[in-house]
C-alpha cells in the first residue's frame, strides 16, 4: 500500500513538472523568446553562484558531520600508518587549495560574465606565458607529491626487519586462517594438493618438513600480535583473490592463489590502548576482505588483538601445533599423558593387587 502510494506521488510529481515545463515554453513563446531567454540566463547565472556558496558550505558541513567518524589523522595504530596519514595530509592540503581556487573561479566567472547586451566577449585565443605558467606549476607541485609519496612508499614496502615476527594469513571463501611459525621461527612448506580439512591439514602442510612440526595453526579466533614488535604477514589464498585490509594499521595486501604476498608493519597501540583512545570499550581491530571474492565477501571478517609480549606468550603457550592433531601419537604431551596413564595404572594396579 505504501509502495503504491509512493509510486502515485512520484507519477503525479512527474506529470506536474512536465506540465509546468510545457506551459513555460508556451509562455516564453508568447512573451517573446528573446526576453525569456534573457530571464533564464539571469536566473541560471545566479543559481550557479548560489551553488558555489551553498556547495562550499555543504563541504564544510559534511566535514563537521562526518569528520569525526573517519580514522582521524594521527590515530593510526602502526608506524606505516603514520606515514600514510602524513602523505594524506600533504595531499589534502594541496588538493584542497586547488579545489577551492578552481571551483570558485569556475562559478564566479560563469556568474560574472553572464550574457549582457552591453558586453562584448574578449577575443583571447591563446597566451603562451599563461599556458607555460599552468604547465610548470602543476608539474612542480606534482613532483613534490611524487617525491614524498615514493619516499614513504619505499619505506613501507622495504624488507621487514630481521626481528620481525612472522604470521601467515590464508584467505578462502569466506574465512581467514592464521599460522605462526613456532619456536624455529620458520613456516614449514606447503602444497595445495595436501589440503585436507577432514584430515587435520587445512593449509596443506607437508609433514615431512620438520619446520612444520611446531607451526601453530589458529582459526576461528583472533590473530594475536605484539605491540611495538614488527610483524611480517605472509599472505596466501586457497581459492580466489582476497585482500587483507587493516584499516587501523593503514595496510592492505591482496591474497592471491599461487602467488604468496607479504607486508610488514609495527603495531604501536594495544587493543586496550585503542579502546581508551577511541573511547570505545567495544573496539576491536578488524581484518576486512577488500577484494571481491563471492557472495560472502561482505562478511569475510577477521579480528586482531594487539597485546604485550607477556600476554602474547601466555596465549601462545596454550597452543598446540597442528602436527600433533594430525599425528596424535607424536604428541609429547599425549605420550606423557599416555605414559602418565600407564604409570597411574601401574601405580593403581599394584594397589588393586
Amino acid at each position, binding site marked *: 500500500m505504501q509502495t503504491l502510494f509512493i509510486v502515485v506521488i512520484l507519477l503525479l510529481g512527474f506529470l506536474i513538472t512536465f506540465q509546468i515545463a510545457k506551459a513555460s515554453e508556451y509562455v516564453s513563446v508568447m512573451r517573446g523568446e528573446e526576453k525569456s531567454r534573457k530571464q533564464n540566463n539571469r536566473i541560471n547565472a545566479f543559481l550557479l553562484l548560489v551553488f558555489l556558496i551553498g556547495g562550499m558550505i555543504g563541504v564544510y558541513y559534511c566535514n563537521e558531520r562526518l569528520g569525526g567518524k573517519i580514522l582521524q589523522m594521527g590515530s593510526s595504530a602502526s608506524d606505516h600508518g603514520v606515514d600514510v596519514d602524513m602523505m*594524506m595530509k600533504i595531499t589534502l592540503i594541496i588538493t584542497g587549495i586547488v579545489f577551492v581556487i578552481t571551483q570558485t573561479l569556475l562559478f564566479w566567472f560563469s556568474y560574472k560574465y553572464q550574457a549582457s547586451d552591453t558586453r562584448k566577449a574578449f*577575443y583571447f585565443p591563446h597566451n603562451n606565458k599563461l599556458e607555460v605558467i599552468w604547465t610548470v606549476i602543476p608539474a612542480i607541485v606534482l613532483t613534490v607529491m611524487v617525491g614524498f609519496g615514493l619516499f614513504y*612508499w619505499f619505506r613501507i614496502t622495504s624488507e621487514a626487519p630481521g626481528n620481525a615476527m612472522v604470521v601467515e594469513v590464508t584467505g578462502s571463501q569466506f574465512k581467514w586462517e592464521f599460522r605462526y611459525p613456532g619456536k624455529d621461527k620458520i613456516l614449514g612448506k606447503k602444497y595445495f594438493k595436501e589440503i585436507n580439512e577432514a584430515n587435520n591439514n587445512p593449509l596443506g602442510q607437508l609433514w615431512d618438513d620438520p619446520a612444520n612440526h611446531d607451526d601453530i595453526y589458529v582459526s576461528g579466533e583472533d590473530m594475536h600480535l605484539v605491540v611495538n614488535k614488527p610483524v611480517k604477514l605472509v599472505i596466501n589464498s586457497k581459492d580466489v583473490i582476497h585482500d587483507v585490509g587493516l584499516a587501523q594499521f593503514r595496510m592492505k595486501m591482496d591474497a592471491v592463489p*599461487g602467488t604468496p604476498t607479504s607486508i610488514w608493519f609495527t603495531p604501536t597501540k594495544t587493543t586496550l590502548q585503542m579502546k581508551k583512545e577511541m573511547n570505545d570499550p567495544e573496539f576491536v581491530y578488524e581484518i576486512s576482505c577488500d577484494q*571481491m571474492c563471492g557472495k560472502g*565477501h*561482505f562478511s569475510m571478517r577477521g579480528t586482531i588483538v594487539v597485546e604485550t609480549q607477556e600476554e602474547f606468550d601466555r596465549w601462545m603457550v596454550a597452543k598446540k601445533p597442528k602436527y600433533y592433531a594430525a599425528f596424535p601419537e607424536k604428541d609429547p604431551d599425549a605420550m606423557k599423558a599416555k605414559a602418565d596413564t600407564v604409570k597411574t595404572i601401574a601405580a593403581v594396579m599394584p594397589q588393586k593387587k
Partner: protein
Amino acid sequence: MSNEAIMHGHANVISHDDVHHDEHHAHHHQSFITKYIFSQDHKTIGKQFLITGIIWGVIGGLFSVLFRLQLGFPDQTFPILETFFGHWAKGGVIQPEFYYALVTIHGTVLVFFVLTAGLSGTFANLLIPLQIGARDMASPFLNMLSYWFFFIASVIMFASLFVHTGPAAGGWTIYPPLSALHEAGDGSKIGMDLWLISMALFIVSSLLGGLNYITTILNMRTKGMSMTRMPLTMWAILFTAILGVLSFPVLLSGAILLLFDRNLGTSFYLSDIVVNGHILPNEGGSAILFQHLFWFLGHPEVYIILLPAMGMVSEILSVNSRKPIFGYMAMIGSLFAICILAFLVWAHHMFVTGLNPFLGSVFVLLTLLIAVPSAIKVFNWLTTLWKGNIRFTPGMLFAIGFVSLFISGGLTGLFLGNSTIDIHLHDTKFVVAHFHIVMGVASMFGMFAGIYHWFPKMFGRYLNNTLGYIHFWVTIIGAYLIFWPMHYEGLAGVPRRYLDLRGWHNFNKFDDLNKMITIVSMIVFAMQLMFIFNFFYSIFKGRKVRTQNPWGSNTLEWTTPINPGHGNWVGEIPEVHRWAYDYSKDGRDFIPQTEPIGADESKDH
C-alpha cells in the same frame, strides 16, 4: 575520390548539378528498414547508438537504485522486490548473489554500453562527417555492422539477466579465479560465459567503429579542413578511437583466455586452488596476469569515456561563451599527452596485488603526470569563460557542471594515484566516489551537454528548455550529495562491494549517510527518467528549429539543412577557410569556418 562517388557509384551524374543531385536523392526510395533499421546513414546510426545507450542507461540506473535500497535500508524488507525478482529477493530482502549481480551489471553496462557505445558511438557517428565536411563515414557498411555487433552484444548481455543462476557477479572487473571457477559462486556459472561472449562482440563493434572514425577523420576532411582547423570534438574523438583500437584487443585476448580457463581446462590464470573442498589440477598460471591485461584496456577505457566528453565540452563552452577556446594547440597537446599516458598507468590499479614496489613507483610517477595535461585543460576551460558573454543553455550548464566534476574527481585521483595513500584507500568507498565523479557522472554530463546541444541537429527540434534546467540542477546537486560524503566512508576504510555493514564494528556508523545517499539517488534516477521522457517527447512534439544555425556556431554541421538527408549537404560540400573558433573576433559575434579570411582581418588564425 570524393565521398559522393563512393556513395552513389557514378560520380559524374551528380557532381555538378545541384538540382539533379536533389532529384537523385528523391529516387532513393528507402523503405522503413533501410532508413531506420539497417541504415548506413551515420546520423541514423548515431541515433541508434544513443537510443540503445539510453535503454541500457535506464537498466543500469535502475540496478543502482535497487542495490542502493539494500545499502540504505539493510534492515528493512521490500515485499515488492520478491514479487518482481522471486528467489533473488527472498522475503523482500536482496540476496547477496543478487546484490553482486546488480553491481556487476551496473558497472559493465554503464562503462561499456552507455559511456562507450552510447557516448562515443553516438557523437562520433553523428559529428565526424558533419564537422569535417564529409557525406558519410569512410565505410558506412562497417559502420552499420559496428552498431549491429553492439546490438547483438546487448541482446546477449540482456539474456544473461534471465538465466537461472543469474548474470555475472564478480564485479565489472571480473577478476579470475573468482570469474574462472564455476564452483566459486552462482555468478561464475553460465552468466559469466555470456558476459564474456557479449563483451567479445562488443569489442568487435568498438573496433569496427574506431577504425572507421580514424580513417574518416584522417582521409575525408573537406577542402581547407586541415587537422588544426578541426573543432576539438574531432581531435578528442580521434584520440578516443586510437585508444580504443590499441587497447580493446588486449581485453579481447584477456577475455578469450578466461573463456579457455573456464571451459577448456587451461591454466592461464589458475594455480594452487582448492575451491569448495575440491582440489583443482591447475598449476603455474597467474591470477595477476589477467589484471594486467584487463587494466591495459581498463585504464585507457577511462579516457575512452572521458575524452569525447572533454571534446564536446570544449566546443560547447566556447560557443556559449562567444569566445574562442583558450589555447587550442595546448588543448590538442594535452589530449595527446593524456592519450599516450593512458597506456602507461594501468598498474596503478594494482598497487596492492604484490606488485614489485619499484615497478609501483614508476606507475606512481606516470599516473601523477596525467594531472599536468588535466590541469592545463581545466585552466584553459576557465580562461575560456573569463571575459566571455555567457549564454546558459542547458547544454552549457552541463558543460560547466562537467568542469566542476572533473576538477573534484580529478583531485581525488591524486590521492589514489599515490601508492602510499592507495594502500589505505584501495578498494574502499573512496575509490567508488572518485571514479563515479570523474568518469561516471562527469562523462554523463558531457553526454547530456552533447545531447542538449546537438539535439536540434539530430531531430530538427529542441528539447524542452525548462525541463533541461530542472534536469541539470537536480542532477548536479544530487551527484555531489551522493558522492561527496561517500569519500568519508572510504577514508574510514569501508570496503566497496559490502552490502551490509552491520557485522563490522569499525564500519557500522554510516547509517544516516547511507539512507540519505539512497534517497537522493532515487530522486536523481527519477529525474533521468524525466529527461528521457523529454527526449522522446521532443523528438515528435518539441519546438521546431527554424534557423539553420540556432546557437550561432562556426562549425560545419550548422551549414547543413535543418533536417539533413543522407549525404548531409545539398550540393557541394562547403570549403573551409579558418579554424572553428573565431567568436567575437574583430567585433563580429561569430565567423563561420566557411567564410574566407577577410583582407583587413586581424591576424590570429
